[in-house]
């Protein structure tokens, strides 16, 4: 077991370095220059020497390999540098925007699990009944509906409803407050976007739960459990669900990691100042340091949630734990 964990953790490092090299090279392959953008965005003329000065100021005049090594070294020593655009520390730029994105992702995950596992299980148990049809229709709807559209519709819905009831439309707060300081204000900001992305997330996990459950229910050991006269609740919860959850855990883990970097559109729709938005701005501005840090953050979250998934696997399946 400890060997298994150690192996998984050690694999994190080559993955991170590979990702770092990739983003470093790709960013520099994109045509354009942040100094041109900074100096020339006003439309006026500027001194060509100013470009060199600007390059020197943000370190772009150094050889590529030096830039790369300092980037990688900075990453491992938790010094991510300053944003080439705003001049503020990258860590500050990210940390002010991370909580809302993280919260929406976590909330969406919780919503997805709470919806997907029970509904997927029921759907499998009642295969081809009206319940199953309803659940499957909901799931297909969730996968087919773009979350930005759902977001817009749900905002308009809330606005219209509150407008009709109280005469003035209710607006979610714009500035982020941590949940422990003002839960209501916090949740009223995060809840709608979380539901919006959580629906799709739930739909994907629900379909996985259903098909995994259907497969497990045909297994011999389920027949054995029934032949032992166990009550149905134990057959499902203890014997079937634990086996069926393995693929579901994978889907949930991958979707979660995807959410952190993939909230761009949802954040735009709900006017949230999160990571996704920062990402788009950073790439548009050719802000190498910020983009690199954001990509590395996403990669780290991916790797980390994969690690969690692997550990969950080991916890759920003794064949992995004792291998």
């Amino acid at each position, binding site marked *: 077991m400890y060997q298994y964990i150690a192996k998984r953790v050690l694999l994190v490092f080559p993955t991170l370095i590979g990702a770092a090299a990739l983003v470093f090279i790709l960013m520099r392959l994109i045509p354009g220059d942040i100094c041109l953008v900074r100096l020339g965005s006003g439309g006026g003329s500027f001194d060509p020497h100013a470009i060199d000065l600007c390059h020197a100021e943000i370190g772009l005049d150094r050889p590529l390999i030096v830039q790369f090594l300092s980037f990688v070294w900075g990453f491992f020593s938790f010094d991510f540098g300053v944003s080439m655009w705003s001049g503020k520390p990258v860590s500050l730029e990210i940390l002010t925007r991370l909580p809302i994105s993280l919260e929406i992702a976590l909330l969406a995950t919780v919503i997805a699990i709470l919806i997907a596992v029970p509904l997927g299980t029921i759907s499998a148990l009642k295969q081809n009944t009206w319940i199953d049809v309803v659940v499957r229709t909901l799931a297909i709807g969730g996968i087919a509906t773009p979350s930005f559209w759902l977001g817009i519709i749900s905002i308009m819905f809330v606005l219209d409803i509150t407008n009709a009831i109280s005469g003035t439309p209710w607006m979610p707060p714009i500035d982020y407050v941590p949940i422990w300081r003002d839960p209501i204000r916090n949740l009223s900001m995060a809840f709608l976007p979380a539901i919006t992305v959580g629906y799709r997330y739930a739909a994907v996990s629900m379909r996985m739960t259903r098909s995994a459950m259907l497969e497990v229910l045909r297994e011999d050991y389920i027949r*054995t459990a*029934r*032949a032992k*006269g166990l009550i149905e609740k134990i057959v499902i919860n203890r014997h079937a669900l*634990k086996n069926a959850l393995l693929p579901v855990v994978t889907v949930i883990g991958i979707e979660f990691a995807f959410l952190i970097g993939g909230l761009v559109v949802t954040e735009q729709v709900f006017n949230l100042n999160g990571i996704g938005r920062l990402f788009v701005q950073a790439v548009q501005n050719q802000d190498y340091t910020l983009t690199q840090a954001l990509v590395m953050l996403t990669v780290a979250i991916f790797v980390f949630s994969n690690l969690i998934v692997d550990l969950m696997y080991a916890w759920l399946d*003794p064949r992995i734990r004792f291998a």
Partner: protein
Amino acid sequence: MPPLLVVNDLHTEFRTGAGLVRAVDGISYTVDPGETVAIVGESGSGKSVSALSVLRLIPDPPGRITQGEIRFAGRDIMQLTDAEMREVRGGDIGMVFQEPMTSLNPVLTIGRQITETLEQHRGMDRAAAHRRAVELLGLVGIADAERRLKQYPHQLSGGMRQRIMIAMAVACDPKLIIADEPTTALDVTIQAQILELMKELTRRLNVALIIITHNLGVVARYANRVNVMYAGRLVESGPAAEVYHNPRHPYTMALLRSVPRLDRPRQERLDPVEGQPPDLTRLDAGCAFRPRCRFAVDVCAMKRPPLEGTGNHLAACFRSHEIEREAGAAA
């Protein structure tokens, strides 16, 4: 003494894409207390389905028991509520399945899988169930019980897993054990051990056993009585020694000839049962074995031979007397 189990005119059907499959098509047999009865037949002959029907474990859909009576210890199994049925399963009737690897849950410990039965049927608490589980492992010949109970199925050998299945089946002192090809998935050396264990346990605990197999050697050595199934019906039924030495149905005879025997010359050719088992969705009015039968005559195509005979040795063949004579002459 009244029989422990009476199966009367049992019909079990499966609705499949290819049509209605009469997997069990009107079979009747009895099992006395403490008796070992073998059900023999090829794959697809309905032998497993007939056994699963006794526990009402046929997955529905697609399967369904459409007709017939199953009486166990005087109770009508078909009339029991789901809760009463659960008491019978694992309580009065234990079940041992074919493939111990897939029949045990891979993510639960051996101990958990044994104790849950005891908790369910006997209302034992965890500690009492654990003590009983230790005792059961001793009974099925597994040493180091405390350690084994903490292990998972994949950490045990095939033979040991089947011993665990047997321990689970006998956990609540059942009156009947149904073993569905309990040795098919095992090494030959292990097969003998498992069969001996089952024989010893059924005798010691005085529990009846239905053993489903296609191995006639098993039948000869361990069964009191044998039922031979073909295409969902019983084609021959009688005391094991009788059926073994004087088969009255051409199918039984063919089965016996298809088995290698050490008491015959090595040069002698084996005689496999020619042809394929019939498609159960397209059975006609005649005898289902007719296309593969070298004794078939015109009447075989017109109606099904009834299961009849002298004493307790029955066969479903119009020419059973001639066959018995020929088999006797050949032996």
